[in-house]
């Protein structure tokens, strides 16, 4: 085989955004053993950018998804302990009909517990339930860079715990996670939705609705401008009571989801405008009561289209997600959308929700304010667009979400993240030689691309 053709057939690995780097996963049930010496853990690869990808001098990451055993569940307290590769799909499959649901779930159930802790994920309920790791994890078992296996929690090795929750896999390999499930009155969601005419109305409605409803997320038509800018639909819900559900059995499949976040990329750019307009207007009533809804259609509408991420084509895509703090004032979201639409409507859809107080995880993303997320197809000007948005976000006192990021510059991240130094200090205490790194940590945190005294590609 010639060199060139070898390079062509070299295995690649990518995040959900499908921007690949050379690399492969080592899959094993025994992450307790295989984590020794591994540079990074990777769950189901649902982070969008390069969080779960190896640094440039390495090829292999540890794939955790076969390490998926429940180690204990107490039906009295709801406390579950499990191996870090256990996925949310599996947890939901086993627990939903038995009356339990995770305290926090992201917008896809194809994630592992390890990934949920490492990104300290938030969900539709952030305003009421906080983040997964910061708010609900009681204990973690970690393989550290120096080879030791330790447990940490709020009380024991508290620094390590705070750095690991939201620490994007850089403090240790998470082997086991203990957290409390929440008990639910029925397996059905009771939901409503409201149409909002512009961004200001949107934000007012979110605040009003979220004072009483535990879950909610908004869909914004990013192509609308001027008077209509930021118009969209707010979808919110709570668990249905046993009386409302009336024993109705939950089918395995949710059916076609209500297309609140009907992905523009399924349609092709020209029809998106038409679709968004149509969609907005088909929500004729300002306020709709949907009643019982399948939790999968409520929490995971995008999971219906498995592998939808491939539709973005060869160059892949990224998601830009930022939080604009309450301190930036009510106008912040409008300012952001104005900049975005002036840059040519980078995205068709944009997801918006309000976020509650900052969690204890040192790099945990949310803080009190508004979170905005939009998908951006990778093009020649993507870096520039992200830079421009980041500059605005910095000036407003906000920050971006590492689990979605593939483009943020180190100086921008530093400017957004006053807690970074504390994180780095703790990390250095446990890993002075940077044995644990990712493509992202090299790009955003300034980790060495190559370790001193090593020139081999492992």
């Amino acid at each position, binding site marked *: 085989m010639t060199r060139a053709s070898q390079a062509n057939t070299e295995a690649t690995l990518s995040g959900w955004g499908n921007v690949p780097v050379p690399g492969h996963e*080592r*899959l*094993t*049930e*025994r992450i307790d053993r295989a984590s020794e010496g591994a540079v990074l853990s990777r769950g189901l690869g649902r982070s969008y950018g390069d969080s779960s990808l190896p640094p440039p001098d390495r090829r292999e990451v540890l794939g955790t998804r*076969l390490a998926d*055993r*429940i*180690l*204990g*569940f107490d*039906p009295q307290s709801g406390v579950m302990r499990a*191996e870090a590769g256990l996925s949310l799909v599996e947890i939901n499959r*086993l627990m939903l009909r*038995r009356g339990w649901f995770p305290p926090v779930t992201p917008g896809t159930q194809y994630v592992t517990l390890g990934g949920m802790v490492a990104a300290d994920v938030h969900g539709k309920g952030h305003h009421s339930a906080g983040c997964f790791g910061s708010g609900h994890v009681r204990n973690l078992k970690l393989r550290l860079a120096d080879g030791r296996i330790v447990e940490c929690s709020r009380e024991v090795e508290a620094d390590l715990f705070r750095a690991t929750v939201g620490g994007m896999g850089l403090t240790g390999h998470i082997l086991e996670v203990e957290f409390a499930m929440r008990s639910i009155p029925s397996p059905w969601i009771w939901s409503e939705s409201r149409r909002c005419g512009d961004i200001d109305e949107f934000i007012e409605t979110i605040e009003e609705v979220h004072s009483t409803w535990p879950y909610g997320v908004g869909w914004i038509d990013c192509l609308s401008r001027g008077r209509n800018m930021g118009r969209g639909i707010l979808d919110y819900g709570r668990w249905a009571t046993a009386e409302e559900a009336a024993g109705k059995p939950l089918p395995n499949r949710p059916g076609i989801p209500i297309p609140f976040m009907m992905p523009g990329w399924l349609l092709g750019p020209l029809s998106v405008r038409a679709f968004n307009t149509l969609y907005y207007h088909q929500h004729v009533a300002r306020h709709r009561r949907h009643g019982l809804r399948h939790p999968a259609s409520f929490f995971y509408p995008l999971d219906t289209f498995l592998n939808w991420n491939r539709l973005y084509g060869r160059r892949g895509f990224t998601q830009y997600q930022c939080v604009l703090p309450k301190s930036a004032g009510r106008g912040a979201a409008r300012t952001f959308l104005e900049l975005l639409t002036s840059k040519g409507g980078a995205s068709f859809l944009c997801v918006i929700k309000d976020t509650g107080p900052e969690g204890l995880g040192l790099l945990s993303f949310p803080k009190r304010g508004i979170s905005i997320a939009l998908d951006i197809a990778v093009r020649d000007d993507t870096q520039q667009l992200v830079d421009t948005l980041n500059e605005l976000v910095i000036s407003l006192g906000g920050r971006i979400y590492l689990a979605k990021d593939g483009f943020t510059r180190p100086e921008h991240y530093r400017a957004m993240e006053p807690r970074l130094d504390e994180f780095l200090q703790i990390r250095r205490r446990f890993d002075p030689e940077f044995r644990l790194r990712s493509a992202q940590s090299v790009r955003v945190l300034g980790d060495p691309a190559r370790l001193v005294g090593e020139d081999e590609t492992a």
Partner: protein
Amino acid sequence: MKVVILGATSGMGRAIARRLAERGDSLFLLGHEPEELERSAADLSARAPDFRGNVGHAHCDLREPEDFKMALTVADRALDGFDTVVVTAAVFATQEQLEADIDRTEELLRINFTNTVVFCEHARNVLLERGGGTLCVFSSVAGDRGRKPVALYGAAKAGLSTYLEALDHRYRSAGLNTICVKPGFVKTGMTAGLKPPPFAGEPDQVAALVVRAIDRGTPEVYAPSIWRLIMLVIMHLPRFVMRKVGF
């Protein structure tokens, strides 16, 4: 059902045990690493209906045939008489690794053939004594035809397949259903270092087929099912072709 499983800690054994636990069958695990057994037992217990699983386990190392009888006795007591025995445990190494290491070759042949058969003989005796039951054992498509990349591993599996087929012929009328499972390439820890060919299967897909075969007493299972066809073709390729091709 009351099922003893040797190999439930990982791969296809894990997937089968989960399906059985989730539908309420009673399980007892045998294996060589106590901590792994403990963790798998916890997993299976949590999956039982109403979280009321109570899965026991005991030590049984395929390298130590002198302990097989005792392990099965312990399982039998715990389950108050088992009716089904499933064996997924085995070891794997590539042809290159084996050719370079005669001790490893000897050990693989012993574990995958001799000792597995000895284990099955003990299980068969217990089952026949009580009028029958099911003995479900994992062989491999690698035993169907002599092929370049699996000369040694395949030879042990060929021997095992032959034994299992004969057991079925010999004892079915006495009430013993012998099931020989022949997986094609399945993505488990065992094959993690290898490049998956087309039609590679997932453990749970295999588990669904195997549980159905146990319920129905089907004597031979290719899993995923497409491998029955693939092997049919391979079995009919002339020798001069097999000498040329790499699989």
